[in-house]
């Protein structure tokens, strides 16, 4: 067995760089496996070991695969697949001896890069992808040109990559996209945070600790004012005491809503593996493959697994009209439990003349009885609403909202819970609002005669600043999670803020150009060039356009690559001489490369007498400038002038 050659090391580097973003998704033993095998390879190269034999390698391979099968529970699912790739990435250098093996090892690195793109989609991973491809390609070039310097190979790799980018962009925008998938592969369920079909007391306050982005809304006009930034997600109809649930599925919205104050915007939602979209209260259209339900929640036909963009229109002033028959479910309460709350509600109902007065009494109850808005609410007893309303009096938005909705229903007012987000941070550099998981919020909608469904946010009664200024001011500072507390004051946090805003603004641009690009965008984009993707002819046209553009870019690049001389690098005297010679060559008097200027002039003089004088003059100047020490600026000026003037055809 021959020892490993030292070119294995760059290959290992390429693999490691490709695998790095996957480390959080890998089982620790797989990471350990790679580190162990690679360290062994470093030592083997350093000390010239021959490496393990065939049997050992087979056992290692089998062991690795078995390990994946056992620890992931399967061999082909998403997570296991990446595990398997990592096992292979660890093993491959061990058996890399031939040129072919090295090439394949680099291909594995490329393949690992694409799997990491399926894990997360953001600008950071995109930049990392380019870096990883740059390194892998440099290593690939190194494999094919081992005597070259690594730096030169990286440069060559960068050159190819930069030249590939325009073509990549063309393909990206023109390559026909499909609506939906080719086949429904079962995908691993990664734990996504966010709303679920049901809401328990304390669910939302847990979300506050999550700094992850939820979505971003880009506005074409003005941003809505802070108090109107209610991002509607799910509507919960069924009350189960301590728990609220979506309950029934609302039918599709049939009629247009009469409303005012429209906002045009698009939302780029992080994948949450659920079907709902978040839209400014109240959405009026159903973008892409989604439907707008009768309770004004937007529902996708598929689980949102990739970052995607949706173009939306919302009205912040609206009237939903009369109560539909199916909506009477908004009055249902569990048969028993929370008797004190029901009594209180009945009491208010008896006292009040209008529904508005009942709402007023409920909100006043929260205001006047020392309720505390807190991130760490105490646990509630078996009748949680009673316990909250009359004993603990501490809670987060879901406590207030569910208690309020319970009271309303008990008082005979149709009420439903709406889950979504409130607020969000407007970006300093872009016209968009970024909303984080920590902005999650729950509020109540009640149906009022003549007004339709009306939003009532009981949290406002307790902590009005939550709505106007966000979470940071609404709860006491020591309760806040680290990323929200403004512990660091002054310049440093200011700079941090600027950087964060900038980064988000760049991300937003990136997302709207690349990540959010979809079939619909492509369709409207191509329609501008008269290509309709809906028809077969249009599809063929777009394919034809791709082929034509690839050929065109190939020609453009070839012109650059196969250019004949770097004329610009020569000194000006010679540059004009070459120009002069090429003029004569076109007229049928080519110069042999070994022909001196006098011989050339003599030859032309003999072949065509009419040229003799002019050619001799130029050649004399050329000789003076190039071969004597008499050359000066005047000669040069005259020489340049004569060469430019020179036309051998007359």
């Amino acid at each position, binding site marked *: 067995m021959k020892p490993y050659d030292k070119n294995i090391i760059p290959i290992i580097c390429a693999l490691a760089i490709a695998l790095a973003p996957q480390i959080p998704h890998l089982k620790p033993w797989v990471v350990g496996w790679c580190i162990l095998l690679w360290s062994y390879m470093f030592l083997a190269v350093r000390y010239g070991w021959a490496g393990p034999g065939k049997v050992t390698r087979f056992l290692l391979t089998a062991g690795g695969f078995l390990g994946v099968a056992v620890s992931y529970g399967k061999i082909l699912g998403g997570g296991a697949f990446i595990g398997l790739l990592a096992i292979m990435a660890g093993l491959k250098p061990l058996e890399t001896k031939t040129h072919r093996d090295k090439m394949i090892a680099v291909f594995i690195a490329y393949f690992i890069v694409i799997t990491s793109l399926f894990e997360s989609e953001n600008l950071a991973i995109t930049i990392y992808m380019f870096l990883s491809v740059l390194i892998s390609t440099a290593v690939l070039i190194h494999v094919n040109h081992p005597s070259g310097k690594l730096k030169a190979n990286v440069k060559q790799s960068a050159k190819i990559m930069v030249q590939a980018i325009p073509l990549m962009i063309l393909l990206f925008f023109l390559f026909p996209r499909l609506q939906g998938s080719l086949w429904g592969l079962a995908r691993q369920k990664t734990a996504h945070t966010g709303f679920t079909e049901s809401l328990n007391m304390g669910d939302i306050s847990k979300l506050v600790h999550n700094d992850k982005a939820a979505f971003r809304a880009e506005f074409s006009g003005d941003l809505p004012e802070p108090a109107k930034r209610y991002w509607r997600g799910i509507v919960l109809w069924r009350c189960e005491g301590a728990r609220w649930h979506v309950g029934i599925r609302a039918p599709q919205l049939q009629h247009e809503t009469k409303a005012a104050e429209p906002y045009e915007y698009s939302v780029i939602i992080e994948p949450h593996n659920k079907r709902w979209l978040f839209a400014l209260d109240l959405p009026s259209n159903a973008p892409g493959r989604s439907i707008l339900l009768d309770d004004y929640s937007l529902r996708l036909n598929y689980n949102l697994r990739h970052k995607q963009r949706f173009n939306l229109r919302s009205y912040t002033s609206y009237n939903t009209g009369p109560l539909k028959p199916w909506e009477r479910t908004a009055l249902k309460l569990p048969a028993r439990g929370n008797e004190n709350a029901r009594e209180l509600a009945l009491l208010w109902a008896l006292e009040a003349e209008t529904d508005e007065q009942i709402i007023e009494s409920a909100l006043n109850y929260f205001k006047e009885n020392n309720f505390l808005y807190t991130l760490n609410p105490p646990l509630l007893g078996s009748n949680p609403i009673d316990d909250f309303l009359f004993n603990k009096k501490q809670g987060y938005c879901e406590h207030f909202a569910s208690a309020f909705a319970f009271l309303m229903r008990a008082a005979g007012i149709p009420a439903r819970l709406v889950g979504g987000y409130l607020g969000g941070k407007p970006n300093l550099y872009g016209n968009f609002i970024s909303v984080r998981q920590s902005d999650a919020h729950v509020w109540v909608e009640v149906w009022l005669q003549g007004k339709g469904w009306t939003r009532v946010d009981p949290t406002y009664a307790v902590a009005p600043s939550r709505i106007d200024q966000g979470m940071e001011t609404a709860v006491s500072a020591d309760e806040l999670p680290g990323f929200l507390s403004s512990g660091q004051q002054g310049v440093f946090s200011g700079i941090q803020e600027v950087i964060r805003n900038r980064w988000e603004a760049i991300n937003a641009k990136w997302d709207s150009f690349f990540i959010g690009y979809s079939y619909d965008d492509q369709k409207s984009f191509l329609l501008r060039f008269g290509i309709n993707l809906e028809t077969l002819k249009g599809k063929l046209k777009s394919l034809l356009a791709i082929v034509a553009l690839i050929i065109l870019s190939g020609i453009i690049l070839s012109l650059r690559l196969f250019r004949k001389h770097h004329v610009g690098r020569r000194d000006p005297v*010679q540059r004009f001489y070459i120009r002069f010679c090429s003029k004569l060559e076109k007229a049928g008097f080519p110069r*042999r*490369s*070994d*022909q*001196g*200027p*006098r*011989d050339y002039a003599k030859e032309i003089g003999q072949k065509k007498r009419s040229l003799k004088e002019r050619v001799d003059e130029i050649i004399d100047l050329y*000789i003076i400038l*190039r*071969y*004597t*020490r008499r050359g000066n600026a005047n000669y040069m000026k005259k020489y340049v002038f004569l060469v430019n003037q020179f036309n051998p055809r007359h």
Partner: protein
Amino acid sequence: MMEQKYEDIVQQIGTVILGKEKQIRLALTCLFAQGHLLIEDMPGIGKTTLAKVLSVCLGLSFRRIQCTSDMLPGDILGVSVFEQKSGSFIFHPGPIFTHVLLSDEINRATPKTQSALLEAMEEQQVTVEGKTRRLEEPFFVIATQNPFEYSGTFPLPESQLDRFLMRIEIGYPGRQAEHQLLKGDEPKSLLAKIKPCLDKEEVLKIQRKISGVHVSDAMLEYLQDILDFTRRSPHFYMGLSPRAGMALLQTAKSWSFLHGRDYALPEDLQQILPWVIGHRLRSKDDLQQFSNEKINAFIMEVPIP
């Protein structure tokens, strides 16, 4: 002015050596470039006459030695002869103490004698019995050898061939020139008619002026490309030495000066090239020297920068 004088000399020599203008020009170029000339040709072709006419024309002294295998270095350099009367040695300078030395059939001399001569050519001085004597300037050796005779000769080794700036062949005269030669006067009487056009001082002055001929960087680059070519091309057993490069440069300067210019052109280099490098290169295939045509063909492979 110089060009006129040069043309006069060429013309004068041409009255004796008929139809060999190119060779006359080359010989003069070589002389003014302070180099030595090797003529490879058969006897009776006019080598001696050329050497004689040259020396007369330039107003220089002339000596001739006929090399044989029993010739000793002393025969060329001179010896100290023991005078029995006075009991002391008196130095008798050899034929080398002259301006123009014609060394006939140099390949007949033994290597030892050859190297003594070549040493003197290189150093412009001779060392006899421990005493160094300078040769008077200008000093110019024309050596001849017969390339067709092998037995009993000592062909000059590569390293010594390199000491000759140029190697030329004279060749048979053309039919017309030969007709004139046969019809005309005896060469001896013609020789008597030749008048010196220059004198020693003038020759030295011209030699100094030639050193001042301008060679531009572009020109040097072309020269270097040619040297590079011979070093890298697989045609050649060995590439040209730096000394050969210097020889080329010196010859090109001299050639351009004699054509009335104070700067050198690529054409000058091309003109003199075969004669300067012909004896310095050997074919890789059979170690033979190249014909001039072949060398010219190689030069066509080197573009002028």
